[in-house]
């Protein structure tokens, strides 16, 4: 039985510089000077490549509702970790942290997505040998 290596060099590279792994010119699409923290309700999750997009409605203290779109990871990679289309149902209440689009529209890129009860969307519950043991976000 052969033992396999985790793909570690790349992990280390990613820790240093995440942009190289994004599909596109991050710096021209999103603005690192506009950090975001949004609390809202999911209205749609587009599980599309090259990036998934989460649509959510955000209610301000005065009751006004604004719709936002947040870019997430590649569905293929998410699927291999045990996520499914049902992992982020419509109506889910989530908190998203990320960066707003450079053109000032209600779009952004997500760095973290956390459910109201503390579960994280983009970290799967990892079982033995690094294999996800179930659906998304059971940390």
């Amino acid at each position: 039985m052969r033992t396999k290596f985790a793909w570690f060099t790349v992990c280390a590279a990613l820790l240093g510089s995440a942009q190289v792994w994004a599909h596109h010119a991050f710096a021209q699409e999103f603005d690192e000077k506009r950090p975001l923290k949004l609390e809202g309700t999911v209205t749609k999750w587009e599980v599309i490549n090259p990036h998934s997009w989460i649509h959510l409605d955000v209610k301000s203290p005065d009751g006004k509702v604004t719709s936002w779109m947040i870019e997430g990871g590649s569905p293929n990679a998410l699927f291999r970790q045990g996520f499914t289309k049902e992992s982020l149902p419509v109506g889910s209440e989530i908190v998203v942290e990320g960066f707003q689009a450079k053109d000032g529209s209600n779009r952004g890129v997500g760095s973290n997505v956390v459910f109201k009860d503390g579960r994280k969307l983009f970290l799967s519950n990892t079982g033995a040998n690094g294999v996800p043991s179930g659906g998304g976000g059971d940390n």
Partner: protein
Amino acid sequence: MNRRITITLLLAALVAVAVLVPAPLSAQTANAVKNWTPPKTADGAPDLQGVFSTATAVPLERPRNLGSKEFYTDEELAARAKATAAQAAARANQAVDPNIVHYDLGQYGLNQRVTAESNRTSQIVGPEGVIPPILPQAQERVNAKQAAARGHNFDDVQHRSLSERCILWPNEAPPMLSPGYNSDLQIVQGPGYVTILQEMIHDARVIPTDGSAHLPSNIRLLLGDSRGHWEGNTLVIDTTNFTDRTAFRNSGENLHVIERLTRTSGDTILYQFTVDDPTTWAKPWSGEVSWEKINSPIYEYACQEGNYGLPNILSGARATEKESAGK
């Protein structure tokens, strides 16, 4: 935000550490690899079929400090794996600048990939272990391209890269190096043909093995024109007729790639490649990497369908221009 990312990275590092520590090949296993005979397809060709991961922990070019050292010993490899794990764990404990890390590791599954083991210090073989310097005429070509693009990078869709436009990802044209994530490909064989389908980002290379000649030289393709033949159990693929848009490591349209695919066990393909372009490098250079079979299908990528990024990038560029004009 810092704290949350730190936790994310720490968990990712723990996952990686859990699967990292390698065991050296036993003498028995090494012998089994040597004596392994690959199965044949119905029409008698060596059977390379399956889904394989091209992910690797071996860098394309050798780190400079290793000089001409081509292989790690098993002990060095184990020590290195341990040190890398410790380093990653230490980094995970540090606060990370959220402006740099805008995605979690887990989003790309980078904390869970498995790769074929290798003692190589670089994919590029030989004492040099690095891509040779490009010739002055190639440098002139690169400079001219850059000069023409300068200030126009975001003018319109045509000025964006082939990968950003979901046309061609660098792993798809030979040599087929790991794309970074979703590093999976499927090999399918039929009589007289081998097809290699890349998950990133959609292309299938259909390679005749029927002895037919290359296309006429006036027909140029982004993936080049590939023709294969069998040498023993090895599939040899010869690819020419590239365009200058493929530009592998500054190559021009005269790029010529020879690939050799040999199944070395039920789970592994040894992938060897030689790259030549007399208008770019003074001599050819070669590399090799092992691909590991995975128990997962290839998934459709359909990059173009969901490519919101491209209009968003151009829209961002217009906003930046407006902002600069207002200053």
